């Protein structure tokens, strides 16, 4: 399944990813995606940072060129790796790091409740996704989005929606405040945000 860059799940994921990237203060960042719209979405979160984006194609470079103050160039595999790489739902597309010291990724997790909704969908669990990056990278989960606790809260809100608007809005808000789960339930969240630090 291709991620919809305008969906809530992608917006929230990008916000968290770019927050962590921003903390590392990189100068050159590889934006690892083949999707033009995903690249645009990610670039919006970067707009006022002083950095250069390395992208996967001239099409993406040209699309980002329309955004003022965003500097983008096509990635040159012969050149030294960028300071950091962003993988917005693109590890599952087969894109891989090229030696960047830091990676920040968002990945769908085959171990989440969605597996129950779509049992025939084949998607790797988050542990397999992270393991595929080892031993070159030491991976660390940052948070899970749409954890089981969140989904239960949202289901309760939906049950209340037709009965009592006031209780629905209160429950929905209570649930949304728990959208980002940094506790152990990240393992079973629909989306996992994690970092990888190059080991050698």
């Amino acid at each position, binding site marked *: 399944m291709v991620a919809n860059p305008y969906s809530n799940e992608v917006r929230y994921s990008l*916000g968290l990813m770019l927050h962590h990237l921003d*903390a590392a203060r990189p100068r050159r960042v590889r934006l690892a995606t083949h999707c033009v719209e995903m690249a645009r979405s990610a670039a*919006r979160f970067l*707009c*006022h940072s002083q950095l250069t984006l390395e992208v996967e194609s001239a099409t993406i470079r040209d699309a980002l060129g*329309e955004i003022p103050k965003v500097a983008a160039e096509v990635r040159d595999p012969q050149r030294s790796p960028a300071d950091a790489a962003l993988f917005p739902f693109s590890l599952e597309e087969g894109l891989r790091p090229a030696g960047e010291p830091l990676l920040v990724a968002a990945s769908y997790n085959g171990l989440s409740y969605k597996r129950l909704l779509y049992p025939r969908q084949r998607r790797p669990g988050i542990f397999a996704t992270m393991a595929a990056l080892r031993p070159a990278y030491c991976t660390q989960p940052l948070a899970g989005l749409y954890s089981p606790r969140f989904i239960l809260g949202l289901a309760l809100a939906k049950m209340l929606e037709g009965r009592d608007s*006031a209780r*629905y809005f209160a429950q929905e*808000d209570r649930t949304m405040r728990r959208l980002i789960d940094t506790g152990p339930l990240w393992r079973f969240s629909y989306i996992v945000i994690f970092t990888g630090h190059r080991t050698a």
Partner: protein
Amino acid sequence: MSYSLGIAQPELRLSLARLGGWLEHMRGPGGYGGPISHWWESSLLYCGPMADWRYEGVICGYLSLYGATGAKRWLARARAAGDDLVAALLPSGKFRNSSFQQGPMEGGTPHEAAADVGLLELARVLRAEGDPSWAGYFEAARSNIRAYLLGELWSSKGFLDQPWNTALVPNKNATTIEALVLYEELSGEDMSPYLGPAVGVILGAQERSGPRAGATIHIGTGRHRLAIGIYTARSICGLLRLYERGSQDELLDAVHRALGFLRGLVTAEGVYFGRYPDGSLIVNPLIVAGAGDMLRATFWGRRYGLAADADVSALAAMLLRAQQPAGGLPFGYGMARRGGRQPYQGLPEFRDVLPAVGWCDKAFRALALLIEPGPDLSLDQSFQETQIECVWQGRRFEYFESAKTIALTSVMTGRSIYLWSKGTCYPSIYQL
């Protein structure tokens, strides 16, 4: 001491000077930034500049101060804000990062129309003074109006919520009406084909009887059909702007009904968010800074005898009382029990106390309408820090705002779970 509408002018002037000072502290590279609280969702991660409806209030507020005092500094600030918008215009004609609480995306509604209002009001003032730079601001607004408002949002029945969402939201049509009336005035192009259906959206959504009489129903709330005070107020402003273009008594009748609805929401601490379909009050949150739009609508309605001095002074006094030491105004009170029918009691929540530029601009714009012509405001004040005890997820915290940061720190442990440095795009600590 000079009083107008029961409001002490010295107090009002001091408040505006502090609010203007606070706005400039929230300004960084690229424009005004900061975290955002909202009923729908909050943007607490991305805190960078956004070209949304904040510019409507910022520009119009500064223009009002310029008009009242003649001091060029206010015009310079309005122009700087206009320059932010011009720089944020994309080749598509949309404004970069205009979606307010949704985070950095273009195409925000009614945000892009509101940004046009700011640009066109600025262009109007500059043109009247014979300043040729007015054309740059006008052209930016024209690009957006032509490419986005008319090019993508227009349907034969009114302006859509989004090109892919066919909901016709009354207050968004109202803001678009305001932009189009200004555009018509400056361009000479007849906007009648668009204005008629757009006002039809507002009038068609207005309740005519019952406990919500006068409210415009927010169509975007689906089955909940909420009647929301601040959005009804913005609808009023669209109707009045159109009335002043060409008198139609039908519009004043609708404004009269709407102001009656607003009057039932005002309290000394804020305005109720709105009413549910059964007429019961949506008590939480009480809206504070955003109630500036209710003050603007009420003050405008007073010009036509549709609101009393007491209506204006009650709202103005509420806003002045709510101002924080740092100069901003809180979003509201009661977000910890969002949507509740019973008043929330207890410490405010983090989102309540947070002052956002995109809400404070509304208070700034409305209060600036109330000052009487006179000398320039006194600006020789140092920044005062804000400290407020509040809650987050049921735990007690201290909210702190200095000239450089906004922080949320645990009362028990002294550990900060949120720290944003002004002028940056992201908080350096985010553990909410």
